[in-house]
Protein backbone atom coordinates (compact mmCIF):
# COMPACT_ATOMS: atom_id res chain seq x y z
CA UNK A 1 0.00 0.00 0.00
CA UNK A 2 2.14 2.78 -1.32
CA UNK A 3 0.03 5.57 0.10
CA UNK A 4 -1.34 6.96 -3.11
CA UNK A 5 -5.07 6.74 -2.50
CA UNK A 6 -5.35 10.38 -1.53
CA UNK A 7 -3.03 13.37 -1.92
CA UNK A 8 -2.35 16.15 0.53
CA UNK A 9 -4.11 18.51 -1.86
CA UNK A 10 -7.26 16.37 -1.77
CA UNK A 11 -7.09 16.19 2.02
CA UNK A 12 -7.04 19.99 2.14
CA UNK A 13 -9.98 20.22 -0.25
CA UNK A 14 -12.01 17.77 1.84
CA UNK A 15 -11.08 19.68 5.00
CA UNK A 16 -12.47 22.85 3.42
CA UNK A 17 -15.70 21.09 2.47
CA UNK A 18 -16.03 19.70 6.00
CA UNK A 19 -15.05 23.01 7.62
CA UNK A 20 -12.26 21.46 9.65
CA UNK A 21 -9.00 23.21 10.32
CA UNK A 22 -5.81 21.15 10.49
CA UNK A 23 -2.26 22.12 11.27
CA UNK A 24 0.36 21.16 8.65
CA UNK A 25 1.70 18.36 10.89
CA UNK A 26 -1.79 16.98 11.43
CA UNK A 27 -2.45 17.08 7.71
CA UNK A 28 0.29 14.61 6.88
CA UNK A 29 -0.75 12.20 9.64
CA UNK A 30 -4.37 12.50 8.55
CA UNK A 31 -3.44 11.82 4.95
CA UNK A 32 -1.67 8.64 6.01
CA UNK A 33 -4.67 7.51 8.11
CA UNK A 34 -7.12 8.21 5.31
CA UNK A 35 -4.85 6.51 2.87
CA UNK A 36 -4.78 3.38 5.00
CA UNK A 37 -8.58 3.36 5.29
CA UNK A 38 -9.07 3.93 1.57
CA UNK A 39 -6.64 1.15 0.76
CA UNK A 40 -8.57 -1.10 3.13
CA UNK A 41 -11.98 -0.30 1.66
CA UNK A 42 -10.58 -1.02 -1.78
CA UNK A 43 -11.35 -4.65 -1.05
CA UNK A 44 -14.96 -3.84 -1.96
CA UNK A 45 -13.80 -3.73 -5.56
CA UNK A 46 -13.22 -7.49 -5.42
CA UNK A 47 -17.02 -7.74 -5.63
CA UNK A 48 -18.92 -7.34 -8.87
CA UNK A 49 -21.88 -5.10 -8.02
CA UNK A 50 -22.93 -4.03 -11.52
CA UNK A 51 -26.31 -5.69 -11.16
CA UNK A 52 -26.78 -4.94 -7.46
CA UNK A 53 -29.17 -2.21 -6.27
CA UNK A 54 -27.89 -0.09 -3.38
CA UNK A 55 -29.44 -0.38 0.08
CA UNK A 56 -29.75 3.05 1.63
CA UNK A 57 -32.28 2.13 4.29
CA UNK A 58 -33.26 -1.05 6.09
CA UNK A 59 -36.52 0.12 7.64
CA UNK A 60 -40.00 -0.69 6.43
CA UNK A 61 -41.33 0.79 3.19
CA UNK A 62 -43.56 3.83 2.99
CA UNK A 63 -43.38 7.37 4.25
CA UNK A 64 -45.66 8.27 7.13
CA UNK A 65 -46.92 11.85 6.72
CA UNK A 66 -48.31 14.32 9.20
CA UNK A 67 -51.39 16.47 8.85
CA UNK A 68 -50.75 20.12 8.15
CA UNK A 69 -51.34 21.39 11.66
CA UNK A 70 -49.48 23.87 13.82
CA UNK A 71 -48.59 21.95 16.97
CA UNK A 72 -45.69 24.01 18.34
CA UNK A 73 -46.08 27.11 20.45
CA UNK A 74 -43.59 29.97 20.20
CA UNK A 75 -40.70 29.27 22.59
CA UNK A 76 -38.00 31.65 21.45
CA UNK A 77 -36.40 31.85 24.87
CA UNK A 78 -35.96 28.10 25.23
CA UNK A 79 -34.63 27.86 21.69
CA UNK A 80 -32.08 30.61 22.31
CA UNK A 81 -30.99 29.31 25.73
CA UNK A 82 -28.02 27.37 24.31
CA UNK A 83 -26.87 30.11 21.91
CA UNK A 84 -23.19 31.02 22.25
CA UNK A 85 -24.12 34.57 21.20
CA UNK A 86 -27.47 36.26 20.72
CA UNK A 87 -28.98 39.71 20.48
CA UNK A 88 -32.61 40.84 20.68
CA UNK A 89 -33.94 37.35 20.07
CA UNK A 90 -31.60 36.64 17.16
CA UNK A 91 -28.58 34.37 16.95
CA UNK A 92 -25.52 36.54 16.44
CA UNK A 93 -22.70 35.63 14.05
CA UNK A 94 -19.79 37.48 12.43
CA UNK A 95 -20.90 39.69 9.56
CA UNK A 96 -21.91 37.60 6.56
CA UNK A 97 -20.47 38.66 3.22
CA UNK A 98 -22.58 37.68 0.22
Amino acid at each position, binding site marked *: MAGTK*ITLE*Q*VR*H*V*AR*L*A*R*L*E*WSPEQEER*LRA*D*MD*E*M*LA*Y*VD*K*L*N*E*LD*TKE*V*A*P*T*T*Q*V*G*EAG*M*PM*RDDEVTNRP*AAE*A*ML*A*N*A*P*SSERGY*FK*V*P*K*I*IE
Partner: protein
Amino acid sequence: MASELNKLTIADASSKLRGREITATQLTRDCLDRIAAAEPRLHAFITVCEREALEQARAADARLAAGNAPALCGIPLGIKDIYATRGIRTTCGSRILETFVPPFDATVIERLRADGAIFVGKTNMDEFAMGSSTENSAFGPTMNPHDIGRVAGGSSGGSAAAVAAYECLGALGTDTGGSIREPASFCGVVGIKPTYSRVSRYGVVAYASSLDQVGPFARSVRDAAIIIRTLAGKDARDSTCSARPVPDYERALTGDVKGLRIGVPREFFVEGMQPEVEKSVRSALKNYESLGASTVEISLPHTGYAIAAYYLVATAEASANLARYDGIRFGLRVNAEDNIALYETTRAHGFGAEVKRRIMLGTFALSAGYYDAYYLKAQKVRTLIRNDFERAFEKCDLIVTPVAPTTAFKIGEKMNEPLTMYLSDIFTISLNLAGLPGMSIPCGHDSNNLPIGMQLIAPPFAEETILRAGDAFERTGAFKPRTPAV
Protein backbone atom coordinates in the same frame (compact mmCIF):
# COMPACT_ATOMS: atom_id res chain seq x y z
CA MET B 1 -25.48 0.08 56.06
CA ALA B 2 -24.88 -2.39 53.25
CA SER B 3 -28.37 -3.18 52.02
CA GLU B 4 -26.99 -3.32 48.46
CA LEU B 5 -30.40 -3.08 46.83
CA ASN B 6 -28.45 -1.91 43.77
CA LYS B 7 -27.46 -5.55 43.16
CA LEU B 8 -31.06 -6.63 42.54
CA THR B 9 -32.25 -7.46 39.07
CA ILE B 10 -34.95 -5.24 37.64
CA ALA B 11 -37.48 -8.07 37.87
CA ASP B 12 -36.75 -8.64 41.57
CA ALA B 13 -36.54 -4.96 42.45
CA SER B 14 -39.79 -4.31 40.64
CA SER B 15 -41.66 -6.94 42.58
CA LYS B 16 -40.20 -5.73 45.89
CA LEU B 17 -41.08 -2.13 45.03
CA ARG B 18 -44.64 -3.03 44.14
CA GLY B 19 -44.87 -5.23 47.20
CA ARG B 20 -43.75 -2.21 49.26
CA GLU B 21 -40.84 -4.26 50.65
CA ILE B 22 -38.41 -1.55 49.55
CA THR B 23 -38.81 2.03 48.36
CA ALA B 24 -37.56 3.63 45.18
CA THR B 25 -35.75 6.14 47.35
CA GLN B 26 -33.79 3.41 49.15
CA LEU B 27 -32.98 1.71 45.90
CA THR B 28 -31.87 4.95 44.26
CA ARG B 29 -29.84 5.91 47.33
CA ASP B 30 -27.97 2.58 47.17
CA CYS B 31 -27.18 3.15 43.50
CA LEU B 32 -25.97 6.69 44.18
CA ASP B 33 -23.79 5.43 47.05
CA ARG B 34 -22.32 2.77 44.81
CA ILE B 35 -21.69 5.42 42.13
CA ALA B 36 -19.91 7.61 44.65
CA ALA B 37 -17.72 4.70 45.69
CA ALA B 38 -16.95 3.22 42.28
CA GLU B 39 -16.73 6.22 39.97
CA PRO B 40 -13.19 7.29 40.86
CA ARG B 41 -12.00 3.93 39.49
CA LEU B 42 -14.57 3.38 36.72
CA HIS B 43 -15.64 6.70 35.25
CA ALA B 44 -18.82 5.21 33.84
CA PHE B 45 -20.72 8.50 34.11
CA ILE B 46 -20.23 11.91 32.54
CA THR B 47 -22.97 13.49 34.64
CA VAL B 48 -24.48 12.03 37.82
CA CYS B 49 -28.01 13.33 38.42
CA GLU B 50 -28.32 12.86 42.17
CA ARG B 51 -30.86 15.61 42.83
CA GLU B 52 -33.07 14.76 39.86
CA ALA B 53 -32.85 11.02 40.59
CA LEU B 54 -33.99 11.46 44.19
CA GLU B 55 -36.84 13.70 43.05
CA GLN B 56 -37.89 11.03 40.52
CA ALA B 57 -37.61 8.42 43.29
CA ARG B 58 -39.97 10.36 45.55
CA ALA B 59 -42.48 10.67 42.71
CA ALA B 60 -42.11 6.95 41.96
CA ASP B 61 -42.71 6.07 45.61
CA ALA B 62 -45.93 8.08 45.57
CA ARG B 63 -47.03 6.24 42.45
CA LEU B 64 -46.05 2.85 43.85
CA ALA B 65 -48.05 3.61 46.98
CA ALA B 66 -51.08 4.34 44.84
CA GLY B 67 -50.75 0.90 43.22
CA ASN B 68 -50.79 -0.29 39.61
CA ALA B 69 -47.36 1.14 38.79
CA PRO B 70 -45.59 -0.11 35.62
CA ALA B 71 -42.69 -2.57 35.90
CA LEU B 72 -40.05 0.12 35.47
CA CYS B 73 -41.52 2.45 38.10
CA GLY B 74 -38.80 3.26 40.62
CA ILE B 75 -36.04 1.42 38.73
CA PRO B 76 -32.74 3.38 38.57
CA LEU B 77 -31.24 3.40 35.08
CA GLY B 78 -28.13 4.84 33.48
CA ILE B 79 -28.71 6.81 30.28
CA LYS B 80 -26.02 7.00 27.61
CA ASP B 81 -25.14 10.66 27.17
CA ILE B 82 -26.36 10.49 23.58
CA TYR B 83 -30.04 10.83 24.57
CA ALA B 84 -31.56 14.29 24.73
CA THR B 85 -32.76 14.79 28.30
CA ARG B 86 -34.77 17.93 28.98
CA GLY B 87 -32.96 20.17 31.42
CA ILE B 88 -30.02 17.75 31.84
CA ARG B 89 -26.89 18.44 29.84
CA THR B 90 -26.29 16.08 26.95
CA THR B 91 -22.68 16.04 25.77
CA CYS B 92 -22.49 13.00 23.50
CA GLY B 93 -18.99 12.61 24.90
CA SER B 94 -17.86 15.73 23.05
CA ARG B 95 -16.35 19.08 23.94
CA ILE B 96 -18.55 20.62 21.27
CA LEU B 97 -21.67 19.78 23.35
CA GLU B 98 -20.07 20.15 26.78
CA THR B 99 -22.59 22.79 27.85
CA PHE B 100 -25.60 21.74 25.77
CA VAL B 101 -28.85 21.42 27.73
CA PRO B 102 -31.64 20.13 25.46
CA PRO B 103 -35.06 21.77 25.73
CA PHE B 104 -36.68 18.43 24.89
CA ASP B 105 -36.65 14.73 25.74
CA ALA B 106 -35.87 11.89 23.37
CA THR B 107 -38.95 9.74 22.72
CA VAL B 108 -37.55 6.80 24.69
CA ILE B 109 -36.67 9.12 27.59
CA GLU B 110 -40.25 10.36 27.54
CA ARG B 111 -41.52 6.77 27.63
CA LEU B 112 -39.23 5.80 30.50
CA ARG B 113 -40.32 8.90 32.42
CA ALA B 114 -43.94 8.02 31.79
CA ASP B 115 -43.28 4.59 33.34
CA GLY B 116 -41.67 6.20 36.38
CA ALA B 117 -38.09 5.03 35.70
CA ILE B 118 -35.30 6.91 37.49
CA PHE B 119 -32.26 8.36 35.74
CA VAL B 120 -29.21 8.23 37.99
CA GLY B 121 -26.98 9.84 35.41
CA LYS B 122 -25.71 10.20 31.87
CA THR B 123 -23.15 7.56 30.99
CA ASN B 124 -19.81 7.89 29.30
CA MET B 125 -19.34 7.06 25.65
CA ASP B 126 -17.02 7.42 22.70
CA GLU B 127 -17.50 10.89 21.26
CA PHE B 128 -20.60 10.83 19.01
CA ALA B 129 -20.63 7.04 19.47
CA MET B 130 -17.56 6.72 17.28
CA GLY B 131 -15.37 4.08 18.82
CA SER B 132 -15.17 0.60 20.27
CA SER B 133 -13.56 1.32 23.64
CA THR B 134 -14.98 4.56 25.12
CA GLU B 135 -11.44 5.91 24.97
CA ASN B 136 -12.65 8.50 22.47
CA SER B 137 -14.71 10.28 25.11
CA ALA B 138 -13.65 13.90 25.49
CA PHE B 139 -14.05 13.37 29.23
CA GLY B 140 -11.68 10.42 29.58
CA PRO B 141 -12.16 6.66 29.19
CA THR B 142 -14.35 4.30 31.16
CA MET B 143 -12.52 1.44 32.87
CA ASN B 144 -13.67 -2.15 32.73
CA PRO B 145 -15.10 -3.19 36.13
CA HIS B 146 -13.47 -6.61 35.75
CA ASP B 147 -10.01 -5.08 35.20
CA ILE B 148 -9.51 -1.35 35.40
CA GLY B 149 -6.49 -1.61 33.15
CA ARG B 150 -8.78 -2.62 30.32
CA VAL B 151 -11.41 -0.92 28.25
CA ALA B 152 -15.13 -1.31 28.88
CA GLY B 153 -15.77 -1.53 25.14
CA GLY B 154 -17.64 1.08 23.20
CA SER B 155 -19.18 3.21 22.25
CA SER B 156 -21.69 2.60 25.07
CA GLY B 157 -18.91 1.63 27.50
CA GLY B 158 -20.22 3.77 30.36
CA SER B 159 -23.64 2.10 30.30
CA ALA B 160 -22.15 -1.41 30.16
CA ALA B 161 -19.69 -0.72 32.99
CA ALA B 162 -22.34 0.98 35.15
CA VAL B 163 -24.68 -2.01 34.90
CA ALA B 164 -21.87 -4.53 35.43
CA ALA B 165 -20.61 -2.62 38.49
CA TYR B 166 -24.11 -2.33 40.06
CA GLU B 167 -24.21 1.47 39.73
CA CYS B 168 -27.69 1.07 38.28
CA LEU B 169 -30.03 -1.80 37.45
CA GLY B 170 -30.16 -1.27 33.73
CA ALA B 171 -29.07 1.27 31.14
CA LEU B 172 -29.68 2.60 27.67
CA GLY B 173 -27.08 2.41 24.96
CA THR B 174 -27.06 2.85 21.22
CA ASP B 175 -25.65 0.52 18.62
CA THR B 176 -24.42 1.65 15.20
CA GLY B 177 -21.83 -1.05 14.53
CA GLY B 178 -21.75 -2.99 17.78
CA SER B 179 -21.78 -0.21 20.35
CA ILE B 180 -24.16 -2.08 22.68
CA ARG B 181 -23.12 -5.67 22.02
CA GLU B 182 -19.34 -5.24 22.22
CA PRO B 183 -19.25 -3.39 25.57
CA ALA B 184 -21.90 -5.78 26.94
CA SER B 185 -19.58 -8.63 25.99
CA PHE B 186 -16.50 -6.90 27.49
CA CYS B 187 -18.29 -6.10 30.76
CA GLY B 188 -20.24 -9.35 31.12
CA VAL B 189 -23.80 -8.03 30.87
CA VAL B 190 -26.75 -8.51 28.52
CA GLY B 191 -27.08 -5.97 25.71
CA ILE B 192 -29.66 -5.88 22.93
CA LYS B 193 -29.68 -4.07 19.64
CA PRO B 194 -33.29 -4.40 18.39
CA THR B 195 -34.29 -4.47 14.73
CA TYR B 196 -33.66 -1.17 12.95
CA SER B 197 -36.91 0.86 13.18
CA ARG B 198 -38.22 -1.12 16.19
CA VAL B 199 -37.37 1.76 18.57
CA SER B 200 -37.68 5.48 17.88
CA ARG B 201 -34.46 7.38 17.28
CA TYR B 202 -36.04 10.78 17.98
CA GLY B 203 -33.81 12.68 20.38
CA VAL B 204 -30.90 10.29 19.98
CA VAL B 205 -27.93 12.31 18.74
CA ALA B 206 -27.34 10.90 15.27
CA TYR B 207 -24.11 9.25 14.24
CA ALA B 208 -25.17 7.19 11.20
CA SER B 209 -28.93 7.46 10.79
CA SER B 210 -29.51 4.32 8.73
CA LEU B 211 -27.54 2.19 11.22
CA ASP B 212 -28.18 3.73 14.67
CA GLN B 213 -30.47 1.83 16.96
CA VAL B 214 -31.53 2.19 20.59
CA GLY B 215 -31.24 -0.66 23.08
CA PRO B 216 -30.88 -1.67 26.71
CA PHE B 217 -28.19 -3.14 28.97
CA ALA B 218 -29.22 -5.32 31.89
CA ARG B 219 -27.96 -8.07 34.13
CA SER B 220 -30.46 -10.63 32.83
CA VAL B 221 -32.32 -11.33 29.63
CA ARG B 222 -35.61 -10.86 31.45
CA ASP B 223 -34.55 -7.38 32.61
CA ALA B 224 -33.59 -6.45 29.05
CA ALA B 225 -36.98 -7.68 27.83
CA ILE B 226 -38.73 -5.52 30.43
CA ILE B 227 -36.86 -2.43 29.23
CA ILE B 228 -37.37 -2.90 25.47
CA ARG B 229 -41.08 -3.43 26.00
CA THR B 230 -41.24 0.17 27.13
CA LEU B 231 -38.84 1.49 24.47
CA ALA B 232 -40.30 -0.14 21.36
CA GLY B 233 -43.15 1.02 19.16
CA LYS B 234 -44.34 3.56 16.66
CA ASP B 235 -43.37 7.19 17.13
CA ALA B 236 -44.97 9.98 15.13
CA ARG B 237 -41.70 11.93 15.40
CA ASP B 238 -39.55 9.29 13.68
CA SER B 239 -40.56 8.59 10.07
CA THR B 240 -38.38 5.48 9.97
CA CYS B 241 -39.95 3.96 13.09
CA SER B 242 -42.04 0.83 12.53
CA ALA B 243 -45.77 0.85 13.25
CA ARG B 244 -45.85 -2.89 14.00
CA PRO B 245 -47.47 -3.75 17.31
CA VAL B 246 -45.06 -4.45 20.18
CA PRO B 247 -45.30 -7.93 21.67
CA ASP B 248 -45.02 -8.50 25.40
CA TYR B 249 -41.42 -9.63 25.27
CA GLU B 250 -41.44 -11.01 28.79
CA ARG B 251 -44.04 -13.58 27.75
CA ALA B 252 -41.61 -14.94 25.16
CA LEU B 253 -39.36 -16.17 27.98
CA THR B 254 -40.71 -19.71 28.11
CA GLY B 255 -37.42 -21.50 28.56
CA ASP B 256 -38.35 -23.72 25.63
CA VAL B 257 -35.99 -23.91 22.65
CA LYS B 258 -36.95 -27.38 21.45
CA GLY B 259 -36.81 -27.57 17.68
CA LEU B 260 -35.06 -24.23 17.36
CA ARG B 261 -32.70 -24.32 14.39
CA ILE B 262 -29.47 -22.50 15.23
CA GLY B 263 -27.20 -21.41 12.38
CA VAL B 264 -23.47 -21.24 13.00
CA PRO B 265 -21.73 -19.17 10.31
CA ARG B 266 -18.33 -20.53 9.42
CA GLU B 267 -17.03 -17.04 8.59
CA PHE B 268 -17.39 -16.05 12.25
CA PHE B 269 -14.94 -18.59 13.61
CA VAL B 270 -11.75 -17.35 12.09
CA GLU B 271 -8.01 -17.48 12.41
CA GLY B 272 -6.63 -15.04 14.96
CA MET B 273 -9.59 -15.30 17.25
CA GLN B 274 -8.89 -15.75 20.96
CA PRO B 275 -9.29 -19.55 21.37
CA GLU B 276 -11.18 -19.20 24.67
CA VAL B 277 -13.83 -17.14 22.89
CA GLU B 278 -14.51 -19.86 20.36
CA LYS B 279 -14.46 -22.50 23.10
CA SER B 280 -17.07 -20.71 25.20
CA VAL B 281 -19.42 -20.13 22.30
CA ARG B 282 -19.08 -23.75 21.09
CA SER B 283 -19.81 -24.93 24.59
CA ALA B 284 -22.95 -22.76 24.73
CA LEU B 285 -24.05 -24.32 21.44
CA LYS B 286 -23.73 -27.75 23.07
CA ASN B 287 -26.00 -26.51 25.85
CA TYR B 288 -28.61 -25.52 23.27
CA GLU B 289 -28.40 -28.95 21.66
CA SER B 290 -28.97 -30.55 25.02
CA LEU B 291 -32.10 -28.39 25.35
CA GLY B 292 -33.46 -29.82 22.11
CA ALA B 293 -32.28 -27.21 19.62
CA SER B 294 -30.37 -28.23 16.51
CA THR B 295 -27.31 -26.56 15.04
CA VAL B 296 -26.50 -26.18 11.37
CA GLU B 297 -23.46 -24.70 9.71
CA ILE B 298 -24.31 -21.76 7.50
CA SER B 299 -22.36 -19.30 5.40
CA LEU B 300 -22.47 -15.50 5.34
CA PRO B 301 -19.99 -15.12 2.48
CA HIS B 302 -19.77 -11.31 2.48
CA THR B 303 -18.89 -10.97 6.16
CA GLY B 304 -15.33 -9.97 5.30
CA TYR B 305 -16.59 -6.88 3.47
CA ALA B 306 -18.81 -5.57 6.22
CA ILE B 307 -16.27 -3.34 7.93
CA ALA B 308 -15.24 -1.68 4.70
CA ALA B 309 -18.86 -1.05 3.68
CA TYR B 310 -19.72 0.15 7.17
CA TYR B 311 -16.93 2.69 7.38
CA LEU B 312 -18.01 4.31 4.14
CA VAL B 313 -21.75 4.36 4.86
CA ALA B 314 -21.42 5.37 8.50
CA THR B 315 -18.86 8.10 7.92
CA ALA B 316 -20.77 9.51 4.94
CA GLU B 317 -23.94 9.85 7.00
CA ALA B 318 -21.94 11.15 9.95
CA SER B 319 -20.30 13.85 7.83
CA ALA B 320 -23.77 15.35 7.27
CA ASN B 321 -25.16 14.57 10.72
CA LEU B 322 -22.29 16.40 12.38
CA ALA B 323 -22.46 19.47 10.14
CA ARG B 324 -24.92 21.06 12.57
CA TYR B 325 -22.17 21.56 15.15
CA ASP B 326 -21.11 24.93 13.81
CA GLY B 327 -21.00 27.13 16.91
CA ILE B 328 -24.08 29.15 16.00
CA ARG B 329 -27.18 27.85 17.75
CA PHE B 330 -25.79 25.72 20.57
CA GLY B 331 -22.62 24.17 21.86
CA LEU B 332 -19.04 25.33 21.73
CA ARG B 333 -18.05 28.40 19.72
CA VAL B 334 -14.50 29.52 19.12
CA ASN B 335 -14.80 33.10 17.96
CA ALA B 336 -13.24 34.21 14.73
CA GLU B 337 -13.41 37.13 12.32
CA ASP B 338 -15.63 35.58 9.72
CA ASN B 339 -18.04 32.71 9.61
CA ILE B 340 -15.85 30.29 7.71
CA ALA B 341 -13.04 30.73 10.23
CA LEU B 342 -15.58 30.44 13.03
CA TYR B 343 -16.76 27.07 11.70
CA GLU B 344 -13.27 25.77 11.09
CA THR B 345 -11.83 26.68 14.47
CA THR B 346 -14.94 25.72 16.42
CA ARG B 347 -15.06 22.31 14.79
CA ALA B 348 -11.28 21.83 15.03
CA HIS B 349 -11.37 22.48 18.78
CA GLY B 350 -14.73 20.93 19.53
CA PHE B 351 -14.30 17.53 17.88
CA GLY B 352 -11.79 14.88 18.89
CA ALA B 353 -9.36 13.17 16.53
CA GLU B 354 -11.47 10.11 15.70
CA VAL B 355 -14.59 12.16 14.99
CA LYS B 356 -12.68 14.45 12.67
CA ARG B 357 -11.08 11.50 10.93
CA ARG B 358 -14.49 10.00 10.24
CA ILE B 359 -15.98 13.30 9.08
CA MET B 360 -13.08 13.60 6.65
CA LEU B 361 -13.50 10.06 5.32
CA GLY B 362 -17.27 10.50 4.95
CA THR B 363 -16.94 13.88 3.26
CA PHE B 364 -14.46 12.37 0.82
CA ALA B 365 -16.71 9.37 0.11
CA LEU B 366 -19.55 11.71 -0.90
CA SER B 367 -17.50 14.31 -2.76
CA ALA B 368 -17.76 14.95 -6.47
CA GLY B 369 -16.02 12.23 -8.43
CA TYR B 370 -15.83 9.72 -5.56
CA TYR B 371 -19.50 9.11 -4.72
CA ASP B 372 -19.91 6.12 -7.04
CA ALA B 373 -16.59 4.51 -6.19
CA TYR B 374 -17.01 4.74 -2.44
CA TYR B 375 -20.46 5.62 -1.06
CA LEU B 376 -22.56 3.95 -3.74
CA LYS B 377 -20.27 0.91 -3.92
CA ALA B 378 -20.61 0.45 -0.15
CA GLN B 379 -24.41 0.66 -0.34
CA LYS B 380 -24.41 -2.04 -3.01
CA VAL B 381 -22.24 -4.29 -0.90
CA ARG B 382 -24.71 -3.63 1.89
CA THR B 383 -27.35 -5.27 -0.29
CA LEU B 384 -25.13 -8.35 -0.67
CA ILE B 385 -24.67 -8.57 3.09
CA ARG B 386 -28.39 -8.28 3.63
CA ASN B 387 -29.03 -11.01 1.09
CA ASP B 388 -26.55 -13.29 2.90
CA PHE B 389 -28.66 -13.13 6.03
CA GLU B 390 -31.91 -13.55 4.15
CA ARG B 391 -30.62 -16.75 2.60
CA ALA B 392 -29.18 -17.95 5.91
CA PHE B 393 -32.51 -17.52 7.67
CA GLU B 394 -34.09 -19.91 5.20
CA LYS B 395 -32.10 -22.62 7.01
CA CYS B 396 -32.29 -21.46 10.60
CA ASP B 397 -34.32 -19.43 13.10
CA LEU B 398 -31.40 -17.98 15.01
CA ILE B 399 -27.72 -17.42 14.34
CA VAL B 400 -25.18 -17.74 17.14
CA THR B 401 -21.69 -16.22 16.93
CA PRO B 402 -19.09 -14.66 19.20
CA VAL B 403 -19.62 -10.93 19.83
CA ALA B 404 -15.98 -9.98 19.44
CA PRO B 405 -12.84 -11.88 18.45
CA THR B 406 -11.25 -11.14 21.83
CA THR B 407 -12.12 -10.19 25.38
CA ALA B 408 -11.55 -6.63 26.63
CA PHE B 409 -8.24 -5.23 25.45
CA LYS B 410 -5.90 -2.96 27.39
CA ILE B 411 -6.50 0.75 27.60
CA GLY B 412 -4.38 2.51 25.01
CA GLU B 413 -3.61 -0.71 23.14
CA LYS B 414 -5.37 0.22 19.91
CA MET B 415 -5.62 3.99 20.18
CA ASN B 416 -2.98 4.70 17.58
CA GLU B 417 -4.23 2.19 15.09
CA PRO B 418 -7.68 3.20 13.92
CA LEU B 419 -8.03 0.28 11.53
CA THR B 420 -7.14 -2.34 14.18
CA MET B 421 -9.72 -0.73 16.45
CA TYR B 422 -12.33 -0.89 13.69
CA LEU B 423 -11.67 -4.60 13.23
CA SER B 424 -12.87 -5.38 16.76
CA ASP B 425 -16.41 -4.80 15.43
CA ILE B 426 -16.04 -7.47 12.76
CA PHE B 427 -18.77 -9.76 14.17
CA THR B 428 -21.31 -7.11 15.10
CA ILE B 429 -21.19 -4.63 12.24
CA SER B 430 -22.99 -6.65 9.56
CA LEU B 431 -26.20 -6.72 11.65
CA ASN B 432 -26.41 -2.96 11.51
CA LEU B 433 -25.91 -2.98 7.75
CA ALA B 434 -28.75 -5.51 7.46
CA GLY B 435 -30.94 -3.92 10.16
CA LEU B 436 -31.18 -7.15 12.17
CA PRO B 437 -31.71 -7.60 15.91
CA GLY B 438 -28.85 -8.98 17.95
CA MET B 439 -28.06 -9.65 21.58
CA SER B 440 -24.88 -10.10 23.53
CA ILE B 441 -25.16 -12.46 26.46
CA PRO B 442 -22.33 -13.56 28.80
CA CYS B 443 -21.28 -17.15 28.12
CA GLY B 444 -17.86 -17.54 29.72
CA HIS B 445 -14.62 -16.09 31.03
CA ASP B 446 -11.11 -16.21 29.71
CA SER B 447 -8.05 -17.11 31.77
CA ASN B 448 -7.81 -13.48 32.95
CA ASN B 449 -11.33 -13.69 34.33
CA LEU B 450 -12.57 -11.38 31.58
CA PRO B 451 -16.12 -11.97 30.33
CA ILE B 452 -16.84 -13.55 26.96
CA GLY B 453 -20.03 -12.70 25.10
CA MET B 454 -22.13 -14.74 22.72
CA GLN B 455 -24.16 -13.03 20.01
CA LEU B 456 -27.69 -14.19 19.12
CA ILE B 457 -29.00 -12.91 15.79
CA ALA B 458 -32.57 -13.21 14.44
CA PRO B 459 -34.51 -12.07 11.38
CA PRO B 460 -36.09 -8.59 11.46
CA PHE B 461 -38.62 -8.17 14.31
CA ALA B 462 -37.87 -11.61 15.77
CA GLU B 463 -36.61 -10.17 19.07
CA GLU B 464 -38.75 -12.74 20.86
CA THR B 465 -36.66 -15.58 19.42
CA ILE B 466 -33.47 -13.97 20.70
CA LEU B 467 -34.90 -13.31 24.14
CA ARG B 468 -36.35 -16.78 24.48
CA ALA B 469 -33.06 -18.41 23.49
CA GLY B 470 -31.00 -16.11 25.71
CA ASP B 471 -33.25 -16.69 28.68
CA ALA B 472 -33.18 -20.46 28.11
CA PHE B 473 -29.39 -20.37 28.20
CA GLU B 474 -29.40 -18.39 31.45
CA ARG B 475 -31.78 -20.92 32.98
CA THR B 476 -29.42 -23.84 32.31
CA GLY B 477 -27.06 -22.28 34.84
CA ALA B 478 -24.24 -23.54 32.63
CA PHE B 479 -22.49 -20.25 33.19
CA LYS B 480 -22.75 -17.85 36.09
CA PRO B 481 -21.37 -14.34 35.52
CA ARG B 482 -18.80 -13.34 38.13
CA THR B 483 -18.97 -10.27 40.28
CA PRO B 484 -16.61 -7.66 38.87
CA ALA B 485 -13.42 -6.77 40.69
CA VAL B 486 -14.38 -3.14 41.21
